[in-house]
């Protein structure tokens, strides 16, 4: 993740911002603190070019101890990679001054990804309900089919009923895992946040 011999000019913006932030690289911070410090740092510089210039100058200066420099750079790369992994929406671009979080979301496509993820979860419910509809319909219209024997006294109807309970349990377990890993990590959609602001149509 950190190439020792990579030139400082090629470091991602998040690494640069973290490096130049007021954070101490020997301490631990919450995600919230990290992101806030990154924002403040980004806002205090004129722009991307100023940041890069300052970063490269710092790293190439001779008067600081080389070891401490490298240590902070490694820390910045590690934290940036970790943040990028756990908060895919934040990417390497901290919310820039002057833009709203809504625009930032739109820029990173987070809203679309959130919608897709939620839609996928809803689609998972379709086969469960479809199996249910199948059972109800064939109990009324396909009685010969439901009476076919599977094993001994167990016929298609009874085994479909049992399968339905198993499928419900499987869907519930799957959705729990899916939501833990894929939905909880999504940023709140702008619809929800507007709703919580108290907007009433």
């Amino acid at each position, binding site marked *: 993740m950190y190439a020792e011999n990579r030139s400082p000019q090629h470091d991602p913006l998040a690494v640069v911002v973290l490096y130049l932030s007021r954070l101490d690289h020997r301490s631990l911070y919450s995600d919230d603190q990290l992101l806030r410090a990154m924002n403040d740092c980004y806002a205090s510089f004129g722009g991307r070019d100023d940041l890069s210039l300052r970063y490269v100058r710092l790293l190439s200066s001779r008067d600081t101890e080389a070891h401490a420099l490298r240590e902070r750079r490694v820390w910045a790369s590690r934290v940036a990679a970790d943040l990028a992994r756990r908060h895919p929406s934040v990417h390497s671009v901290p919310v820039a001054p002057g833009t*709203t979080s*809504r625009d930032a979301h739109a820029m990173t496509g987070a809203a679309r990804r959130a919608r897709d993820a939620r839609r996928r*979860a*809803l689609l*998972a*419910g379709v086969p*469960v*309900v479809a199996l*249910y509809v199948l*059972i*109800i319909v*064939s*109990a*009324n*219209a396909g*009685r010969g089919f*439901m*009476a076919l024997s599977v*094993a*001994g*006294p*167990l*016929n298609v*109807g*009874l085994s479909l*009923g*049992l399968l*339905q*309970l*198993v499928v*419900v*349990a499987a*869907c*519930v*377990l799957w*959705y*729990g895992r899916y*939501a*833990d890993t894929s939905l*909880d990590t999504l940023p709140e959609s*702008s*619809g929800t946040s*507007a*709703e*919580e*602001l*108290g*907007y*009433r*149509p």
Partner: protein
Amino acid sequence: MTPDRVTAYLPVFAGFLVCVLFLAVWAAPQRGTLSEFYVSDGRLTPAHNGLALFGDVMSAAALLGSPGLIALTGFDGTLSVLGPAVSWIVVLLLVVERYHGKGQFTIGDRLARRLRPRAVHLAAGIATLFVCLVYLIAQLVGASALTVGILGPSGRGMEQGMTVVLGAFMILYIVLGGMGAATLVQTLKAVLLLAGGVSLAMAVLSRFDWDAGALLNAAAGNSGHGERFLQPGLRFGDGGTTMLESASEQLALLVGAAGLPHLLMRINTVPSRRDARRSVQYAALMTCAFYVAAGVLGFGAAALVGTDAIVADNPSGNTAVLLLAAELGGSFLLSLVACLAFATVLAVVAGVALTAAISLAHDIYGAVITRDTASAQRELFVTRVAAVAVGTSATVLALIARNLNVSFLIGLAFAVAASAIVPALLYSMFWRGFTTRGALWSVYGGLATSVSLVGLSPEVSGDARALLPGLDFSVFPLHNPAIVSVPVGFLLGWLGSAPFRRAGWKAPLADRVTTGVPPRG
């Protein structure tokens, strides 16, 4: 069943009631805040809340009704347990995470997050009260029918007494302990129900050397129907109306569970959306496990007791599990299962009555009458008064309506929840264009449609078994209105919103928030 068994278990149940009363006092709210009384401060763990949620769904119908239906009608009876299991998927995927909100207690609160508060609180309050009252009456009538079923002819005089006792304890629990006590009773009962149901099913299976095939064969043999017992067709006859009838019933079960106020109430007793989701997961898994056990109990009752003996004891099959328990473990086990059944009714009615009381105090008194100016102490006091009022009127109505068919009442409650509450709830959570007008049209329209269709159905008139057998104004052929009233509820919600949106509605949300476009609709 003989009267000497009466004396064997009634003291046990009385002991249970008093123990739970002590526990309810112990679990009673300490600080006297609304949030503590209404939702236990939202501090339950997901596993605990999931257990209580499971208990809320498992009324006496699940313990006695479903296995009884399976014992009488075989395969067609098993269909009755699939609907409630699948409805958890609807709750889990569509409702639970979006419904959860801190500091919100009722359905009215959820709708008022985006719509004009006073109007939607009134509408949601009326719908909640109606569903809860019908559900309460159904459970209490069921309890009195159960008394007769368990005690036999000697129980005739006691059935009304049982309704009154259950109603009184229900009021006591919730007045004293609020959500804390309701959760406690529900948890106790859910643990007992799950353990009792599963161990009874194990006992049945051990009789057949753990061979499910032998159990099914014996059930088919002793049912008097032979092979047809395991095949569709015993409960529902043929014909197009039957098909529509069963579709309507299943739709009400599937959609209605997502709109039952006492289930929605429980979503807010946990700290976060994630925990709310987990509670529903626990509840759904326990439901699936319990329904497998219920299936074993139903077929076991048919196999060990025999369908003829079950029908001879009670034509609706509600005592099948009790007969099975007597067969397996004598009068001791019978007493335990009977106590479990009454505890089940008590726990469910406590939760439903609490929800109705909170809706009355918070939605109608708090938000509509006093426009949110009442102090917390005053609203809490009103909640307790409302609990007494709701509990008393439900008990009195249950005594008056004791001859009503329980499954008709449950069907009505589910149909109203599905057509009046669910459409407004789903629209407000998923559709940004939904307006207050749409919500009101959908709630009142769904309520009116479902109730009037039931009024015009063969349940009320024009049938020998109807409520008013002498009259005939049954224009609507189905017993359950859901297949018409649920689409009507959704359609009215759309019609009330879409055509009335002004040209400016597409302005970016952020602008509307900052410039403060006034509420409309």
